[in-house]
Every structure is written in structure tokens, then in C-alpha cells.
């Protein structure tokens, strides 16, 4: 019998090996830093927030969990601040988490379900006290930022993705990404006075990121089919709501950089990703290689912080290892890296 007892104890010992939880790390109040939304991975329920303090270069991971005692959910896709609140779009969990911008404590979790069907929210923008959320079920939801309730739904194209506002109109990239290989090719234009779709502009296969420039133009990335149809950047006129120009570069991302853009594109000559400086006034690529990317394994987001005049790159590594936030000065010289969560994508800067 002694042998049996010993064997049971051995079994229990193996079992107990699984208990090894790290205590949460508390930091001082949220200021002067970067709040990084880490998407996590599908079906892992591990989307999270990391906070990088620019005061002491310390990093706190799992900020949402630490402040609220629960997980953010599955696949965080967007984070933005409006007023004194932060809105986090969680795609697979189908929620909008509304947080107090100072304390990061939860104010409300808005469930984005349509009956039993998850709407799968993707991106968020704000205008006139309203939040507009693109949802993969083919709608843009309109949320009152005071009552935090959904006022209405505006039907657009298939699997809407990126959003941008210009000229009192909302531009919605209808990706159709879930219909591969028969993806959508349009951008919906919504009148922000009537909250009605007024036009669909055909721009090219699989529209994703959309960015407005200071001159009222809309730039949209059409990602193609990832094989025979390449990714391209298109320029739309927000007065005539028409396609004006196609840029013959394999551009995959656009980020604001003062009044210009930093664009990420694939250079087939060097077989490498590059970051270029795009002049929104001349509407030309001014510098085809703005900054070195030796430290970056997978460029997953590009962000400019006007407060400290620095550029940050979200590095997703191989998508299954935890990522980094890479810091560069405004001239594009590498400074340092911060180790954050899995698949860092969007960043919100605090002064």
C-alpha cells in the first residue's frame, strides 16, 4: 500500500506543477506612455493591454486584467480615445469595452450580438458625440457615447473594415474578406447628417485600412487576394466621392506622420518591407526608405507620437511569440524596444 500512496503523491505532484501564476504588477497612474493593444490569437482568449511608461521605461502587461479582474477577450482589433473614455473593439468576443481613460477601469461592456449572431466589430471612429463601429456582419453600428447604447445600424458592404471621416462623411472599406476568394471591392460613403449610405465607390479588391489627409482626400489600401492581385494604395476625392489615383506600390499600411503619411510597402527589388514617407500635399512618395527595419521581424503597426516626436513600430514577431514595441526618433533612427504581449497592433499615446 505504501507504494500506491507514493504513486498517488507523485501524480498529485505532477498535477501541482501547473500552478504558477504571476502576481499582477501595479504601476503608477496612466500618463506619459503608450497603451498597446495586443490582439492575441484566435480562440485563445488572450487579447490584452500593455502599458509602456516613457517616464521610467517600465512595462506593465495584462493592464486590463489587473484593473478589472477579468480578461479582455478574444482578438482585440482597435483602440481609440474619445472624451475621457477609451473604446476597445474586441472582434471574436464581439464586444466594445469602454474604459475610464485615467484609471482604465471598465465603465461598460457593450455586447455586439445580433440575437445569437456575433457582429464581430472591427474598427471604431468618432464624430459629433457618436461612435461608429464597423461590424463584419455588413453594418456600421452607431453608438451614443453618453448613454453607451447602440442607436442604429447602417447597412454597408460585405465585412466592413477600416473607417475614416472627411468632409462630414464616413468612409467604410468593405473588405469581403470572409468571402475569399470572392471579396468585396467597394468603399461605402455615409452621410454623417442623415446616417445613410449615399454611395459605394469601387476601389479594388479587399479594401482595408483607410486614412484621411489634411486636404480632404481619402487614402485606402486595397489588399488584393494576397496572391495574384497585389496590394495597392488608392486616393479618393471626398468632394466628388470618386477614385482619383492608384499608386503602383505594394502598400499594406498607412499611418499619419504630422501632415504626411508613413506608408509600409513590400519592395520586390530588395524582397523586404520598407517604410516610406508619403507627402500628402504633392501626393508622391517622398522617401522610399524612411527608416531602417533591421530590428523588426514582422511590422504589424506604425504609430507616430506627436507628444514626444517619436515613431513606434508594433513588431508581431512570428505572430505566435510575444511581440515588441520598437521606438525610433522622428528621423527614423532606432532607439529601444519594449517587450509587450502577443501580436501588438494598435497604440494609444498618453501625454
Amino acid at each position: 500500500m505504501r507504494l500506491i500512496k507514493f504513486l498517488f503523491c507523485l501524480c498529485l505532484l505532477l498535477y501541482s506543477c501547473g500552478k504558477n501564476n504571476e502576481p499582477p504588477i501595479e504601476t503608477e497612474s496612466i500618463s506619459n506612455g503608450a497603451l498597446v493593444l495586443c490582439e492575441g490569437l484566435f480562440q485563445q482568449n488572450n487579447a490584452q493591454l500593455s502599458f509602456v511608461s516613457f517616464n521610467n521605461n517600465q512595462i506593465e502587461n495584462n493592464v486590463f486584467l489587473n484593473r478589472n479582474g477579468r480578461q479582455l477577450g478574444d482578438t482585440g482589433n482597435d483602440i481609440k480615445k474619445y472624451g475621457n473614455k477609451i473604446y476597445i473593439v474586441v472582434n471574436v468576443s464581439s464586444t466594445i469595452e469602454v474604459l475610464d481613460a485615467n484609471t482604465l477601469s471598465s465603465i461598460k461592456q457593450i455586447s455586439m450580438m445580433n440575437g445569437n449572431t456575433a457582429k464581430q466589430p472591427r474598427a471604431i471612429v468618432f464624430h459629433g458625440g457618436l461612435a461608429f463601429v464597423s461590424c463584419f456582419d455588413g453594418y456600421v453600428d452607431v453608438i451614443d457615447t453618453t448613454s453607451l447604447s447602440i442607436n442604429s445600424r447602417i447597412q454597408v458592404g460585405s465585412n466592413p473594415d477600416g473607417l475614416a471621416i472627411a468632409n462630414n462623411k464616413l468612409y467604410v472599406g468593405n473588405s469581403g474578406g470572409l468571402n475569399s476568394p470572392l471579396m468585396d471591392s467597394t468603399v461605402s460613403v455615409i452621410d454623417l447628417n442623415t446616417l445613410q449610405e449615399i454611395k459605394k465607390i469601387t476601389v479594388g479588391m479587399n479594401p482595408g485600412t483607410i486614412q484621411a489627409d489634411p486636404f480632404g482626400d481619402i487614402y485606402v489600401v486595397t489588399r488584393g487576394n494576397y496572391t495574384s492581385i497585389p496590394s495597392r494604395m488608392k486616393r479618393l476625392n471626398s468632394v466628388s466621392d470618386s477614385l482619383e489615383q492608384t499608386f503602383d506600390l505594394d502598400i499594406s499600411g498607412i499611418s499619419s506622420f504630422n501632415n504626411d503619411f508613413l506608408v509600409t510597402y513590400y519592395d520586390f527589388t530588395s524582397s523586404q518591407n520598407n517604410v516610406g514617407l508619403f507627402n500628402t500635399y504633392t501626393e508622391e512618395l517622398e522617401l522610399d526608405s524612411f527608416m531602417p527595419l533591421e530590428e523588426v521581424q514582422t511590422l504589424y503597426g506604425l504609430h507616430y507620437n506627436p507628444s514626444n516626436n517619436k515613431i513606434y513600430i508594433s513588431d508581431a514577431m512570428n505572430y505566435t511569440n510575444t511581440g515588441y514595441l520598437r521606438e525610433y526618433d522622428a528621423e527614423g533612427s532606432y532607439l529601444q524596444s519594449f517587450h509587450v504581449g502577443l501580436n501588438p497592433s494598435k497604440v494609444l499615446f498618453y501625454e
Partner: protein
Amino acid sequence: MKLVIISCLWFGIHCFGQQGGIQEINEVTYTYTLDTFNAKNVWEGLNTEKIESLQANDAADLIQKLTSTNIRSYGGLGGLKTVSSRGLGANHSIIVADGFGINNTQNGQVNLGQIHADNISYIRSDSDEKTQFLQPISAQVSGSHFSLETFENNFGADGFQFRLQGKQGSFNQMGTYSAAKFSSKKVLLSAHGSIRKSDGNYPFTLTNGSQNSEETRTNNDYLDYSFGFTGGFKFGNSVFRLGYLQKEFDQGLPGAVILYNNFTDERMERIDQNLFGDHVFKGKKTTFRSFFKMNKNQMRYTDPDYLGQDNGIDITYQNESLQLGVAVEHIFKNDLKIHFGAEEVLSNLIVSDIGFSKPNRMHHFGIVGLNYIFLKKYGLTLQLSEQFIEENNKAGVSAENQFKINPYIAFSAKEGKHKFGHTIWYRNSFRMPTFNELYYNNIGNLNLEPEQAHQFNYAWSFSSSNKRKFHFYLRNTFYLNFVDEKIVAIPTKNLFTWSMQNVENVRILGGDLKFGSKFNTTKDLSFSLDLNYSNQNAIDISDPNSPTFKNQIAYMPVHSGNIDLSIRYKDLGITISNYANSLRYALNENITANQVDGFLISTLSSHYTLKLRNKNKLTFRFTVKNLFDSQYAVIRSFVMPGRNYIIVMKYAFN
């Protein structure tokens, strides 16, 4: 996302015994074995008695009792369960039922959760030294294979035999199984059928940070039924068998438990039809087996809430295969034997999805080897196998053809009247990329290379005399394996664009300890204790600059094992079995955030057999699974059921 969902679904989307078991094996001619040191060891398998005492739901519950196995279970009756042996990965393991390989060229895996345990009379792992030279060649050249035998497909006791079983359990689980078999010295005739169903909506505690909530697993219903017929005929030194088996499945796919969004209505229906037959000739010097199997597997996957199309997803997959093979063993002298064989497997896949490839594959296997016993105590086995794979995609570009030669060498020694033995062997094998991995829209990669495996093994074993009241068996194995060019799905370009890539190299350094014992205190009272312990250090050695370099690979426990204790008094038996896994990681990066807790699951089962007149028996069983109501998951976000009960009544004639 569609691709991600489907990929998780399909890629996603892994001794023992008693004398009776061996006797059952020997009833079937094709399991004739060359090896005199290990194959006839009475502990090298789970026999009928052991299987019945464990009250397994399916083949996975049995295979997890074998050393060096790692079961990946996604939970629920009929839910996906795969086995990986010695850290090689599930696609390196072949399941052989009654001498016929269970094949699936679409995803390369067999769902063990859909192989009933009710009719299994014997199961063993052939991951160790290869000794079954009349098995399918495809199984012999694989990294590992598991063999099982069923009641209905093999000659049995003379005369008429009948089995009728009813089962009722938690979560509205029920099942029936019946089989009738007539065996004589010349003829085998059998027919069988079964039904299993379950609502599957089991409760679980969802832990979210510091919050716990009581939830119910939904969309987990399951229904399957199967029927089959087998005929056999012995003529001179020959045995012929011909059989048909059909299985149908209809099940909800509960998917991962997603926080704040726990609704899913994905479903899968499947029809699996098999026609199989073989001929075994056993002469004085030559044993010969020829075999064939035709398989048609139709699967329909639906998701009405999928956001890509107006009516969701509704895709059908049809995977057909034809296996033809011969295996020959010839004895030159008593101490020198050769074996050789060939097998052809033709398979195709037709998918209703837009733009999907139409792949066909011709897979040829050849094998030749010898076994030499010298000085009456040493054995040497040398073997070479070759494989040629021809790919033909009727709707696009084909993957490259492959040709490989793989060696296998083994050396055995015995000491002390067969009681103490050593075995050392090396095996080189590979597994082909599946149709999904090569051709699935966007995810598939035509440039994939086969995944290579190298296995170095040493084992010693000792068995005491079974004539004593207390007898035991001890086996200790050490192995060093390498998997090169491991095929994994990784995101490329962005998280929406996953692709199969040969990106990982894995080194597995492991060891097993097997202890089996039986203590016959009196004629009526006996105890048995079985212990398996496996230690598997399976680490990523792909890139020294990677953060996961030398990290334990995902879902591979370093420690795992079983402790089973049985007590039998006359016709009453009680067994407590325990299965434990140490912590694992959901991803290759060994950080706290990726930890999946270890678990210890206990099952208590009891049975009582009422022996009636004229070879009639009535057996009652009562089983409590997950006795201590542990909340656990084998795969992150796929919760397993808590404590549950099963009552079984079985009638057997002869």
C-alpha cells in the same frame, strides 16, 4: 477568418495485458510475428479483461493507457481526439483496425473519439520495435502505429457468439451495441451494429481572471451509428476475409469557449463506408498476406452564422481511397527470416468550395528486411523501405512528387530464460503533407516538404514468472527523436492569411517506465497494479535566435502517466484508474500567459458478472468518470466534462 476557423477545425481546426489477449491475437493468422523477445510478452497490450475494467468510451481512452502517448482531446462524446506518440505529432501515427489501416489523406488524422471501445478486444502500441510484418506496409513504415482488434472481424470461439449491450450516462448519453458471430474451424460469419448519442450539454465553471461563472457547454450534441458484416473462410493453409463497415455521424461542433460570445451552431455530418478483405496463407516456410480496402468518406460542414456569405457556410468534402497490398515472410532457416511487401494507396479529394483543388495521390510503399537470430539470444533486424508519391491536381498546380528511402535497424538480446531483455533500434520515417496542407485555399502550400522523423531507442524489460502468486513486468525505455521540417500553420503577411510551412525542428528526449503486476492472493481474490510514467522533453531547436529556442513545444507535457489499481473478488471487480498530465503550453513560447494547467483525472469503475446456464453471462457496470469533478482542459478554451456517470448492462452468449 473563414480560413482560420476551418484550419483550426481540421489542422487543428494526436505494456501490458494478460495471457488471454495474446491468445486472442494468435487466433488470427496475420498477426504471426517474427520477434521472439517482445511481441509475445504478455504485458504488451490491453486485452479484453483490461479493456472492460477501464470502461472506455472510445479508443482514445484506451490508447492513453499506453506509454509515450499524448492524447489531444477537444472534449465531449465524439469530439476530436488525436494521438501523438513519442512527441512525433499525430500525423506520424497510423491506426490499424483488424489488420487494415484507417486512412485519411485529407487531414492525415484519425478521430479516436469516433472509434468505439465497446467492440475492441485487444489494442497495443507498435510504436516500439516493429514486429508485425504482415500488417499494412504503410503502417510498418510509419513513425508509430497502434493496432486494435474487434470482436466481429476475427475468428473466435467455436459456435455461435452473441453480444448485446445497453449504456446510459450523464448528459443524456446512451448507446447500444450488438454483435452476432458464428465461428467454426472453417467459417466466420458476423454482423454488428451500434448507436451512440449524447446531448453533450455539460456544465462547467468558467474562470475569467478572478471571476468564476457557471456555464453550460452547448452545441455539443452527438449521434453516430454503425453497422457491418464480415465473412471468413479457412481453406487448407489459407484464410480469407471479406467485410463491409459503414459509420454515420451527425454532431454539433461546440468550438472553443470564447469569452463573452459563447454561441456556435456549426455542425458536421459524415458518412464513412469501407469494404475490405484479405487472404493469409501460412505455409511451413512462407507466410503470405494480400489485402485491400476501399474507403469513401463524405463530410459536410455547415455554419449558418458565418458572416462571409448570405447563407453561411455549407461545404462538402469527399475523400476516397483504395489500398492494395501484399506482405510476405519467408524462413530460410530457423534463425534467418526475410520479409518483404508492397502497398499502393490511391486517394483523391473533391471539395464543393469555390476554387478548391482536385488532388489525386498515388502513394507506393515497398519494404524488404531480414531478421537473424544468433547464439540463441541475440536478434538483428535490418529493413529498408521506399516510398514514391505521385501528386496530380486536376484543378491547378500539383505538388511535387516525392521519393524516399528509409532504413530501420534493431538489435535485441535476452537473458535469463527470456525474462530479461534489451532492445535497441533506429528508425527513419516521414509523413507526407496532407491534401489540406498542400491544397486548401490560401492556407495550403504546394512547396511543402515531407516531415522527417529520426528515432533512436533503447529499452530493457524484465518479467517475473507468471506461475507465482505475485508476478510483475517492468520496462524502461529511453529515446531520442528528431522531427525535421515540421509542418505547422503560421500566419503570413497578417493574421488573416495563414499558411502551412516547414518551419520547425523538434528534438524529443524522453523516457518511459512501465510497471505491471498481478497478485493472486487466493483463487477468488486478486489485485493488479499498473503504472505508466512518461517523460518527454520535446523542445524547439529550429532557430537559436528565436525566443522559443529550447522551449517545450505546445501541448506536450513533460510528465504524464497512469496509475490503475484493480481488485477482483470472484465475479465482482473494482478499478480505479488515474491519468495525469503536467502543465503544458498553448503556444511554443514557455511563458506564464501560455500555460495550460496540469490535471489529474480519476475514474472509478465496478462490474459484476452473473454467470447463467449454458454459457450465458450478464454483466453490470457502473462507472464514475472524473471522480473528483476536476475542471480541466487538454486544449486551451476547450473545457472537458466534470464528474459524470455511466451504467452499462451487457449480455453475452459464449
